[in-house]
């Protein structure tokens, strides 16, 4: 935990002064003195903060022949004398002698100020050959090219006597600091890069991470190092640049300090576990960097930095664990029979701790697989865990176990890792690894996460699943249930509401505008009234709702079985069509049947929201009672993806029951007509 002292900031064992010092160093580095204080001592030549180029330093070279020379010079200037990995990582390296330089954008006053339009700036080839229309970035290059055409050409000679007039360039963006002459940048390349970095489109995207760059060279530089060295703050943030990392630490620490200073009534742990181990893990970070650094060759996905076991955990995950590789499709296929209600369980732990997986249902299979042998759960990752769970992660391992036994129900653990451990009653010595890697994995790779998750947590979730289900999942399920419960008119309101809201995701193209109009129905045989009621009456609501998560969850659970989602029949927002949409995902084309079957003439008569049993419940009950058993099997079939069977049987059931028994009974109870 962070201390409450305000005079020094003790994270990572560095004093505030050291941190400041390093910040300054880094700042200096960023402007060209010493980039590359990085772990491995290599170069960091990608730039998040483009302003840091020291363009005006290049003025001297403005008359040199080719742009290349400028660039290389610039590059050379930015290369730091590499510090040794150890010294920089531990923060005890000797401070670099800093050359005092001008700030970027403070040119000599006598320089000639040039303002170029954005177009000119962005033009890649300003100098066009009149013969072949080939463009060049530099006039000199054009001259050389003209020589090839046997045209008159002339290279500017460097005058020995006359000092070339220095030029500085304005950024054309009026809101930019470099728009003013006093802050103009010193070379054309620089201003070009500045302009595209700061005000241009970032069209270069890194394949490995989410970063985008406006300047190709930035992107290239980043691509070279992406994933190779990274700093991970205890809070989980990754940094590829150390200066960014340190700036971030300041923030992280400030928040931690703050929550340490005013612990809220009993929530202090909640607040501070955020910055897990900011204080306590003081040494972990540096150790983490230096010691994991050499193994980074083995896996560049291994995150460096003070994530304690997080790093190891992540590593686990990215190894394809042999025991955990059930193929996705298998999982999906197997999933349903585990529990018809398994869709999107993020079950709460009894002890109320976190780390739930979003799509647990995909894990059910694995869970079973593992439940026989919890210790096996880490699978391929276990070895790695051991490897990395060295002595320098005391926080997470020992403390975690302690708290597991002692404070299962409380959140008063210092670190987020121990929080996870709380979930782990069954925990033997190694179990906490599962949590770690589960968490790290979860955080780094969204949806595919649970495929490689560990068992112990899920085992528990399995147990708890019976106990309760998240509200989000319930809403989803309620939506899904539209298909089964709509045979029961009572369910109409909620089921169809939710259902169409839910199905709005896949179908929203079609439903968007005309949801509430009856025009829709002209395209189709009139859907059963209940459905149309639900769909059209609430059409507005539902279709606007296209971003609801139900859709995604649903898609997930059906993903494997999903063949093709025939959109052609989804135009109507009616409940039954929704349902069909979903069938289509699994089977194909039952839609017309549904429509036809469902279509009945006495539409609005059945619009009963008489769920409360104000009347005719007996009739309803009779229906449902009669169909109970088939409902079950249908549900399961549906879950399994045998939608053909399911829908047909459901249809027939619905038709049988609805059209005979219930129609009349609900027709007889037109509470809103």
């Amino acid at each position, binding site marked *: 935990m962070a201390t409450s002292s305000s005079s020094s900031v003790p994270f990572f064992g560095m004093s505030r002064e050291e941190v400041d010092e390093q910040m300054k160093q880094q700042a200096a580095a960023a402007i060209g003195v010493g980039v590359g204080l990085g772990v491995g001592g290599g170069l960091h030549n990608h730039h998040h903060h483009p302003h840091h180029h020291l363009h005006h330093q290049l003025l001297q070279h403005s008359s040199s022949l080719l742009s290349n020379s400028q660039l290389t010079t610039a590059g050379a200037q930015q290369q730091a004398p590499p510090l040794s990995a150890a010294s920089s990582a531990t923060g005890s390296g000797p401070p670099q002698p800093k050359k005092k330089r001008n700030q970027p954008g403070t040119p000599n006053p006598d320089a000639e100020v040039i303002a170029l339009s954005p177009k000119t700036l962005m033009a890649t080839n300003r100098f066009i050959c009149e013969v072949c229309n080939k463009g060049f970035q530099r006039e000199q290059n054009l001259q050389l090219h003209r020589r090839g055409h046997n045209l008159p050409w002339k290279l500017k000679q460097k005058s020995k006597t006359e000092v070339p007039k220095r030029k500085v360039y304005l950024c054309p963006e009026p809101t930019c600091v470099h728009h003013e002459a006093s802050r103009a940048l010193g070379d054309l390349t620089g201003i070009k890069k500045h302009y595209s970095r700061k005000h241009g489109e970032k069209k270069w995207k890194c394949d490995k991470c989410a970063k985008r760059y406006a300047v190709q060279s930035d992107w290239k530089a980043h691509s070279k190092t992406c994933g190779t060295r990274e700093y991970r703050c205890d809070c989980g943030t990754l940094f590829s640049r150390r200066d960014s990392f340190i700036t971030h630490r300041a923030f992280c620490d400030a928040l931690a300090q703050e929550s340490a200073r005013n612990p809220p009534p009993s929530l202090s742990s909640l607040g501070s576990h955020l910055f897990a181990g900011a204080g306590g893990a003081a040494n972990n970070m540096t150790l983490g960097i230096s010691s994991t650094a050499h193994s980074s060759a083995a896996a560049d996905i291994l995150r460096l930095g003070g994530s304690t076991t997080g790093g190891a955990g992540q590593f686990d995950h990215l190894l394809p664990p042999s025991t955990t590789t059930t193929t996705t499709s298998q999982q999906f296929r197997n999933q349903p029979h585990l529990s018809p209600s398994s869709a999107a369980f993020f079950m709460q732990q009894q002890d109320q701790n976190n780390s739930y997986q979003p799509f647990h249902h995909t894990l059910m299979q694995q869970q079973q697989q593992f439940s026989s042998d919890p210790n096996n759960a880490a699978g391929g990752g276990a070895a790695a865990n051991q490897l990395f769970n060295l002595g320098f992660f005391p926080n997470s391992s020992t403390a975690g176990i302690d708290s597991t036994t002692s404070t299962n129900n409380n959140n008063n653990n210092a670190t987020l890792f121990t929080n996870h451990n709380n979930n782990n009653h069954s925990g033997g010595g190694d179990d906490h690894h599962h949590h770690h890697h589960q968490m790290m994995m979860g955080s780094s790779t969204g949806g595919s996460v649970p495929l490689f998750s560990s068992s112990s947590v899920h085992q528990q979730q399995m147990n708890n699943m019976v106990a309760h289900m998240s509200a989000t999942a319930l809403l989803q399920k309620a939506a899904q249930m539209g298909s089964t419960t709509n045979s029961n008119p009572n369910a109409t309101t909620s089921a169809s509401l939710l259902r169409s809201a839910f199905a709005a995701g896949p179908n929203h193209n079609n439903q968007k505008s005309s949801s509430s109009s009856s025009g829709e129905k002209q395209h189709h045989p009139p859907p059963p009234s209940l459905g149309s009621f639900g769909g059209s009456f609430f059409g507005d609501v539902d279709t606007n709702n296209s*971003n609801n998560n139900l859709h995604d969850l649903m898609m997930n659970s059906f993903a494997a079985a999903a063949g093709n989602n025939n959109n052609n029949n989804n135009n109507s927002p009616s409940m039954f069509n929704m349902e069909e949409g979903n069938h289509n995902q699994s089977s194909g084309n039952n839609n017309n049947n549904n429509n036809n079957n469902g279509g009945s003439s006495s539409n609005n008569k059945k619009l009963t929201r008489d769920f409360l049993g104000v009347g005719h419940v007996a009739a309803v009950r009779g229906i449902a009672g009669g169909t109970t058993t088939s409902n079950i099997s249908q549900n399961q079939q549906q879950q399994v993806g045998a939608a053909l069977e399911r829908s047909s049987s459901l249809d027939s059931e619905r038709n049988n029951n609805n059209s005979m028994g219930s129609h009349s009974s609900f027709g007889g109870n037109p*509470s809103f007509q």
Partner: protein
Amino acid sequence: MYQDDGSSSATSSPLQFFSMAQLSPNPSNLGSPYPYLRELKSEERGLYLIHLLLTCANHVATGSLESAEIALGQISQLSAPDGDTMQRIAAYFTEALAERIIKAWPGVHRALNATKIKIPSEESMVRSLFYEMFPFLKVAFVVTNQAILEAMEGEKMVHVIDLNASEPSQWIALLQALSGRAEGPPHLRITGIHQQREVLDRMSHKLVEEAERLDIPFQFNPIVVSGGLENLDPEKLRVKTGEALAISSVLQLHPFLASHKNPNSRLLQRQGTLGELLLDQKDNSFDSASSSSSPPIGSPSSSQGKMDWFLNVLWGLSPKVMVVTEQDSNHNGATLMERLLEALYSYAALFDCLESTVPRSSIERLKVEKMMFGEEIKNIVACEGGERKERHEKLEKWIHRLEMAGFGNLGLSYYGMLQGKGLLESYGCDGYRMKEENGCAVICWQDRPLYAVSSWRCRK
């Protein structure tokens, strides 16, 4: 009672039980406690509650008060503010629905709330609990600070206006980040706006202390506005020429959407046929569509009016950067059902967050749920017109609105996004996600967007 009640439910799927459970309330035993309902498993009960809630809301929306009353009675059998997530949600939504019904009798409503006292300190306590329990505000702060930091690069005089100055930690962090700047720290002035003097004093004290420690020239300018930002006097902001201005707004803009027009509560007037209902709905949706695009002229209290005024004030300050955090949900629909359904989804997500991170027995959790979410739900569901302040809207609407007001979307930097993401991940609860949308950061629970942070500049 029912032939296959008990026997099948024990072993079969909950779906089946659900369908049976629906049947149970038959006229003969209405109003009586249903013992078997209490034995429902969490999941079945949850499904049942959702179903009941929507049914009830429908009745309320259409003015079938007797039916609504029955539904409310049933829900209250099952809901519980300290139960599982769905029970809790149901409790707050029924409370809201009941309030909506009661509002048809203004006298009764007022009498019921006669002794309700707003205690500001409680409110700020709940806010800080919310701050502690969820990562949302922290992420918003991190992202905001990063955006400010980037925009203020090279600036020597920096002025930050915090429209809701309640958390010093955000600015302490900014101070620290500024002190590490390559070009050295700027002169920093922070204007904090809050309803309570004490909050501002505390903040001032902390910030001044930190600035002294870091040796940053610093000034704190507290502004107490009673009764919300609407009563802010822009003159007091004292923005000086030559200083670079940043504005931070965390959940402060949506109340300006509250409009006094169409105060007609739709409670008792909707006894019509389905056809009328449909028409009504259409009209409403048309209404809302047209009013958002062309504000009614000459109604000063209309939503557009107040919002326009405030955005214009902000724009007039020519901020170099303005970072806006707002709820990213659609709770400003024209109809009750629309809002209720959306709210159901968003608050389900929020309650799920708590369920997965805080023990059920936690008093703090209860407080946040009741005093914050419960009140918001009540406001969304029960209130209309100018009373309805919790008009959370989707990010795209905000983008449009701010663009119309002369702001340009700056787009958050990757670094900012990265920081936010990292902080989220640090919660270790992988339900929290962050994604980018139009250069803005959207913070989600699972796939449900909950909050959005966007960064703006003044387009002159």
